[in-house]
């Protein structure tokens, strides 16, 4: 109990509503201040130690590059975001679905699960051609990779969560005459939700990795493309600019998923 209240400040008692509104704002401001400080320090370090731009460019130069040609970064951001979202959503849905199926059909799970594990040891990047072959040169090819990286942790945690149901709780509902379906909807799935969200948070990062790697398989737009371009033209400034955009995308997406978690799993994971 105490742990859950700690990790969910929303449920903590006290605090007026205006303060509740102000707090995230203050936190955001503090974060921005730290960020500015870090960039200032970075700039100073590069200047003072005369670090060559091939190794580390000055942040001002990076931001100037972003400012002068924003289009590729904005487009890249949007494209990669779209791929990530599609892959993430489908991976999450499939992961949860197959988790439920495995929970019900133990034999199937024992048959297939090891294959799932093995599949996760394969570096997708080795199969660029196969991905293009199967999914074409479309957005869905990238989303497919994001999907592949996403579904597995979700499946694992869905299963873990479903199996963590307190048997006494199950017995109680059964004593009320609950059907298997009622058990699932009213007990098992809600119980698994905290675990599922832990996986979703992890998957949010993985989906982004999938999208970026997917863009290495012949694409024109996307953060992955920009990274590749920057790498092979030794355009360190562009690499850094892309990196910062990726960081922004990654952090935001993660924060959104974490926010959804706080919203849906307001009661916290009772261990």
């Amino acid at each position, binding site marked *: 109990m105490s742990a859950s209240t700690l990790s969910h400040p929303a449920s903590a008692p006290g605090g007026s509503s205006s303060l509740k509104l102000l707090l995230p704002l203050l936190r955001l401001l503090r974060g921005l201040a730290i960020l500015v400080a870090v960039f200032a320090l970075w700039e100073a370090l590069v200047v003072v130690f005369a670090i060559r731009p091939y190794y580390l460019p000055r942040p001002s130069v990076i931001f100037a590059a972003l400012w002068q040609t924003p289009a590729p970064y904005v487009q890249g951001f949007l494209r990669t975001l779209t791929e990530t979202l599609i892959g993430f959503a489908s991976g999450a849905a499939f992961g949860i679905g197959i988790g439920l199926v495995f929970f019900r059909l133990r034999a199937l799970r024992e048959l297939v699960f090891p294959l799932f594990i093995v599949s996760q040891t394969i570096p997708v990047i080795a199969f660029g051609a196969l991905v293009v072959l199967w999914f074409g040169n479309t957005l869905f090819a990238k989303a497919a990779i994001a999907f592949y990286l996403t579904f597995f942790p979700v499946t694992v945690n869905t299963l873990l969560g479903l199996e963590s149901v*307190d048997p*006494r709780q199950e*017995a109680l509902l059964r*004593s*009320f*005459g609950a059907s298997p379906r009622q058990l699932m909807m*009213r*007990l098992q799935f809600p119980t698994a939700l905290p675990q599922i969200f832990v996986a979703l948070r992890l998957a949010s990062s993985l989906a982004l990795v999938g999208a970026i790697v997917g863009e290495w398989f012949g694409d024109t737009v996307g953060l992955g493309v920009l990274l590749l371009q920057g790498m092979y033209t030794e355009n360190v400034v562009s690499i850094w600019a892309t990196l910062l955009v990726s960081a922004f995308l990654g952090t935001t997406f993660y924060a959104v998923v974490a926010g959804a978690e706080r919203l849906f799993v307001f*009661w*916290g994971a009772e261990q």
Partner: protein
Amino acid sequence: MGHRDQSGALLRAASETASSTAPAPVSAQPPLLEMKALSKRFGPVTAVDGFEAAIAPGEFVTVVGPSGCGKSTLFNIVAGLEEPDAGSILRFEGRSCHAHELLGKVSFMPQRDLLLPWRTVIDNAIIPMEIEGQPRKASRALAREMLPEFGLAGFGDQYPHQLSGGMRQRVALMRTFMFKRELMLLDEPFGALDALTRTMMQRWLLEVWRRHKRTILFITHDVDEALFLGDRVIVMSARPGRVKLELKVDLPRPRHADLVTSPEFIGLKRIVLEAIEEEAMKSFLAPGATAPQTDTPE
């Protein structure tokens, strides 16, 4: 303190047990529940062995016995969650039946409150009605009406983690009461509460029982509790569980707080304590590997 007004019924129940006459146990009536030669093995462990008892309608029967003697097993059988071993006889409302036929027929409250943390007080309370397929809106309205009686007025939309242990237990009890069945099984409902809260809850339960007129089978470890509540106390032997002593508690109802220090009460307590003493000794020193660890919360 500020909630006094919200929970009049509870306060009344807690400060002095209500004054109308309690339903007298009517042994002449055919029993509601009858168990004969009831046994249950789990692999090498015999949890219950030849348990016999009959519960009359409207009766409040308490069961005490050392840890691991099979009390919960007994309840699981009567709740329909587990089948007894072959040869056991189970009769409900005069008809012999399988345990699973009792699923949905008996109102069962397990040892822990087992509230669903994602549901409000109201929504936890209406689970049994929801499962019965009753319309949610009507159930909610019904539950909301019952809140004051259970000392939960104003807490209907709170979540379990916002409640104290005593309140959680009352929600669990309310859930049990909303599952309107003749027979109620309460498995150590107050086991997790501190001793003071506990005595409050006992007096309040008697008051609620008086008004709702159900048959109650009540497990406890606490001899005071067993005697204070019950029309009859069944003392079970150490594992394998069977009936060691059946004691009629002919103390007058309504029962008041100072009953526990009355000579009649002390007399009965001495009898029960004596019966329990040797049984407790038997299981006291058994290593944890075989003893149930219900007292170590997970």
